[in-house]
């Protein structure tokens, strides 16, 4: 009834299904796998993992240029990408362009086709072999301009060690409770030893029907979605790397941490943001010790 009354104003936001289980990527369409990586050196124990939403980087040359301009991100062993696109008429995805240029392998899954014909996706780029690649459609949040959201996961094989890695992109303009509902099946159904990263879209506010941010409420209480998400992830034994009050959104005047990298049962050695231009997100990274287990 409430939804019906508010329909004229905006669409009501609600979870309408449970998504899918993690599904073997080789069984489904829309997943692209790169050739084996060209290993440059014997694997060590320190693994650098980065995450970057490539929104606004609409030119393949631009994507490469910005990656080459970085230091911490360009040297990452694993890069989790969100909104990595393929434009109409292009032979390959941004993921393939980057993977080829950086001599990495990749697993890419298409997630959403825009009206312009651009196909967006999530991906994992890796300097080490990827195995057991799986894709999961996350629980659908029915709201204004809603779209399906996906996660992609793979085992990264580093010599004798392996760690499960997932790249995730959650909905925008939803309540933190719906955000946790959307994320929970993906992070709980992973191996114990896991890395989860991506764009969690944790804008700090409550949302009135996915349309009006309640900015003053957040200003008074100071209970940002990013901090709540970290608390929830801690209940799943994940340790976050980027503090909740850090800004990963590039638009001036909007301090919000939309992105993060979490590790479970793997020690985090260092973490930070690198201020690389191009997208409306700053890329983030952390170093983990893949030889140690917590």
């Amino acid at each position, binding site marked *: 009834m409430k939804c019906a009354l508010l329909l004229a104003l905006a669409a009501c*936001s609600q979870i309408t299904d449970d998504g899918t289980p993690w599904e073997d990527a080789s069984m489904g369409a829309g997943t692209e796998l790169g050739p084996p990586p060209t290993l440059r050196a014997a694997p060590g124990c320190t693994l650098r993992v980065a995450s970057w939403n490539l929104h606004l980087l609409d030119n393949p040359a631009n994507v490469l240029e910005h990656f080459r301009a970085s230091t911490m991100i360009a040297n990452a062993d694993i890069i989790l990408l969100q909104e990595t696109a393929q434009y109409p008429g292009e032979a390959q995805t941004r993921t393939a362009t980057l993977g080829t240029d950086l001599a990495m392998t990749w697993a890419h899954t298409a997630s959403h086709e825009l009206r312009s014909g651009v196909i967006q996706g999530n991906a994992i780029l890796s300097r080490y072999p990827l195995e057991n690649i799986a894709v999961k459609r996350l629980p659908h949040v029915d709201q204004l301009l809603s779209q399906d959201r996906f996660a992609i996961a793979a085992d990264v094989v580093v010599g004798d060690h392996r760690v499960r890695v997932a790249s995730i992109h959650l909905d925008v303009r939803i*309540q933190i409770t719906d955000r946790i509902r959307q994320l929970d099946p993906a992070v709980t159904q992973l191996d114990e030893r896991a890395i989860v990263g991506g764009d969690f879209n944790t804008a700090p506010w409550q949302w009135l029907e996915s349309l009006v941010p309640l900015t*003053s*409420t*957040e*200003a*008074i*209480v*100071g209970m940002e979605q990013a901090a709540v998400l970290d608390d929830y992830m801690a209940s799943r034994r994940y340790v976050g790397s980027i503090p909740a009050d850090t800004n990963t959104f590039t638009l001036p005047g909007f*301090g919000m941490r939309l992105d993060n990298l979490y590790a479970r049962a793997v020690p985090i050695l260092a973490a930070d943001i690198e201020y690389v231009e191009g997208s409306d997100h700053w890329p983030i990274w952390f170093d983990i010790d893949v030889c140690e287990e917590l």
Partner: protein
Amino acid sequence: MRWLAIALLSAATTTARADDAIVASAGEPPPPRHLVYVEALGKGGLYGIGYEYAMTERLGVGAATSYSNLSEHQVFTMSPYLHAQIFNRGRHSLFAEVGGILAYSRIASPVENWDGMSEWGGGGFATLGWQYVRGPIVLRTSVGVAVGEGGGAPMTGIAFGVRP
């Protein structure tokens, strides 16, 4: 904030004149001092109710409270405030308000094995608004800023009230 404080102080001091206080002219009933209203998006909450007492024609004190529950995220607010009319012409007036906000936020867990979160917060607000009065009916809309533990943020509100 500074200009608003000056405006309020100015309004308060001008209301100190005896001829400007709430007094009835000979043969007329005294103007009502009480205002009750409902409000949307004001004073830190999504929707709430308020009461205001006019100490003078231009200066009043009030309090508003709100409660909302959006997708199992509950927010309760209580806001005492000072209201001052800055400029008045006919049924229309420009007003300013400053006050404090006490808020309690509780997020119920939507999943198993997580307890959810709850937190108290406090802060203040300052707004500038327009008021329209017709008989006992009062309509107000305002814009301003709220400042608290989460920093500063713009706020807006619309209120509909009666002076019984």
